[in-house]
């Protein structure tokens, strides 16, 4: 398709694309640049894309105004657990549903997919009661628990694993390989791109959670950063520029994961087909 356009028109197109990209990135740049501004700048509501005076001290100041190191640590623990949980269980379930033809497999798949209509926002209250029955109110496992497996991840893995030729698996079976070994040695290595997609989405979704931790946590020791970030704005005299600094810091972990997985993601998004 590239040959459609060439020369000046291609350049023009690229410029248009760059402008389009700018529209999407501008708010992010605004966030970053604002986080280095003096607190007063925010109240004047003028936009100064490059701060005339840089205020990197916004960052340590903001971190010191509440237990943000602790909140970030909690968020990392929860999100990492959710990521690992999704990687493990979505792979297992996806593999089981894609490559084993036991009776009721279809039904189970539908049962799992149906949970897409039951997001946490809908079942907030009863899920809270379940967590309470488990004695997990005010704990990190209470935040992570209901997020450990996502139906979309199962679906993603199943669709991907379907494409792996069954012949490979049978050949391995003939060679006497156990089922776990087949999963580990044959299936998983081919799943790398889709696992990268799953890891990023699972981590990001858990990293973003606000309502659920708000409901389940009432103790500073277990608060995650979104709770701290919102509360930060309600506390007297906390400069919005420092709030932006926390927002920037909160972007970094997902961004790092994105960079880390970038190569795998590129093929992952292309191949997973994300399609029903």
């Amino acid at each position: 398709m590239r040959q459609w356009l060439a020369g000046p028109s291609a350049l023009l197109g690229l410029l248009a694309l760059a402008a389009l990209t700018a529209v999407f990135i501008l708010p992010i740049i605004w966030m970053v640049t604002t986080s280095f501004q003096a607190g007063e700048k925010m109240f004047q509501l003028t936009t100064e894309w490059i701060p005339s005076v840089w205020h990197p001290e916004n960052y340590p100041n903001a971190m010191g105004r509440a237990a943000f190191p602790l909140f970030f640590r909690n968020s990392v623990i929860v999100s990492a657990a959710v990521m690992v949980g999704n990687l493990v269980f979505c792979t297992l379930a996806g593999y089981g549903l894609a490559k084993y033809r036991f009776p009721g497999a279809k039904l189970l798949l539908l049962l799992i997919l149906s949970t897409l209509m039951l997001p946490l926002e809908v079942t907030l209250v009863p899920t809270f009661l379940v967590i309470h029955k488990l004695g997990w109110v005010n704990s990190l496992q209470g935040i992570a628990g209901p997020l450990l497996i996502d139906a979309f991840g199962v679906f993603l893995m199943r669709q991907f694993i379907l494409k792996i030729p069954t012949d490979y698996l049978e050949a391995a079976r003939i060679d006497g390989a156990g089922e776990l070994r087949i999963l580990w040695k044959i299936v998983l290595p081919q799943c790398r791109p889709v696992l990268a997609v799953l890891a990023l989405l699972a981590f990001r979704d858990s990293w973003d959670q606000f309502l659920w931790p708000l409901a389940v946590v009432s103790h500073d020791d277990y608060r995650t950063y979104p709770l701290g970030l919102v509360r930060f704005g309600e506390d007297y005299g906390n400069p919005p520029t420092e709030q932006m600094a926390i927002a920037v810091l909160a972007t970094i972990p997902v961004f790092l994961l994105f960079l880390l997985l970038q190569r795998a993601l590129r093929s992952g998004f292309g191949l997973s087909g994300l399609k029903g």
Partner: protein
Amino acid sequence: MNTSPASDDAMLARPDTGMTRREVIGRLAALGAGAAVAAAPRRVAAQPAKAPMKLTFWTWENPQQRPWLHKRITQYTEKHPNIKVDFQWFTFTDLGKKVSVGYATGTAPDGFTTGDWLMPTWLARNLIAPLDVKQLGYPSVDAFRKDHADAFIAGAIQDGKVYGYPIWFYGFCNYLNTKQFKEVGLDPERDQPQTYAQLGEVAKRLTIKQGNKFARQGFKFAMHAPQWTMIQFNPIVVQSGGQWFDKAGKCTINNEAGVRAMTVRASIARQYGAEDPADSIATAPLPQMDWLKERCAMFSCHPIPPVAIKSQNPAMEAEGYYRPVQLPGVTADKRYSTCYGFNFVINANAPKDKQEVLHDMYRFVMSDLVDCWQATAPFTLARKSGWTDDPRVKSFPHVQEIIRAKDQGVFFPRTPVWNELADAMHRAVQKVMLNNADIKVALDEAAAEVDRATAEFKKS
């Protein structure tokens, strides 16, 4: 008997002994003496259990008040090493919700602070325990009643039993930027608005507009949260001769008086063009920020600690070009605001021994009111005795004005559907102020909402 040292009782007034005793106490306090008032005869004296005990206690966040509470509770646990208190705090708006959910799941704290407007919500569901005023150092409920602000009494006493122990109660003042007053040739003393009509005129003079942008708003009503909407609208309703509910419990905010009140509320923007309800720098929920940053010349606000002013506007604090005065009234003789505050309460489900320790802890926390004042001034206390005579209180800038606002203030309607009422009114104000809705229609909708909520509450 009581294991806490006598000095705990130093500031604890015993109102039944009349004025002379109170004066004595005042003088004692003035001297800063640790002299003890003989402990009131307590038949059921608080007897903190010697066995290890873990209490949970929740409060709301405020940069002065929360740390002081924390300090006092820590002091208490240092005195009683067998007692541990898990002290947690939430934003102003989250605390009530967190406590509700806590009750639902049996994770509610043993003790917590609550806004006086929420007392009927807890009481209607039997969630909080009656307090024994004797354990708090008062000989009788009547004595206790006489020592506290009306707004407190109206929410915390039911069927002759006391359910809350008040901490801070305060009214709103009109905070003037005196520099800006002088700038436009107004005298902050003589020209301070006495009525809302005058407020409109003064605000108009103080307003500076650049095209469709207000460089400075003359006056500003908060638009940020239901609670602020209620605090600022409530006195105007009362002054207009309105009432929130009739005897049968029907919401009457949409009657003529209610419409008059909302017309007054809307006039600063609609009639005088002296405020821009859609424009606030405080996209964060701190409406007073506009006044602190001198983008609005007058603001109706709770007592503002000088440290808070200093942190946002050092010049204003240092040069002292601000001053709180009584809010205007619908007429000049009705210059009062809403008085509201916070109570200590005890979870009805807490075991008896914990309840007793909480009594003792609350009494200890509130036993040094001057210390409280010094840490949290000018947030005024609900207690009448034990602090106002102290020189450190008396010498505080503008203190008389702030105390008067508390004493004159009218309190909120007492209703178990408070949250529904506040949300409905907040929406009505938004419709009127931001979307130019018809006042009567907006109030009709709000009243209907509140009536539906009341009907449902009665059913359950």
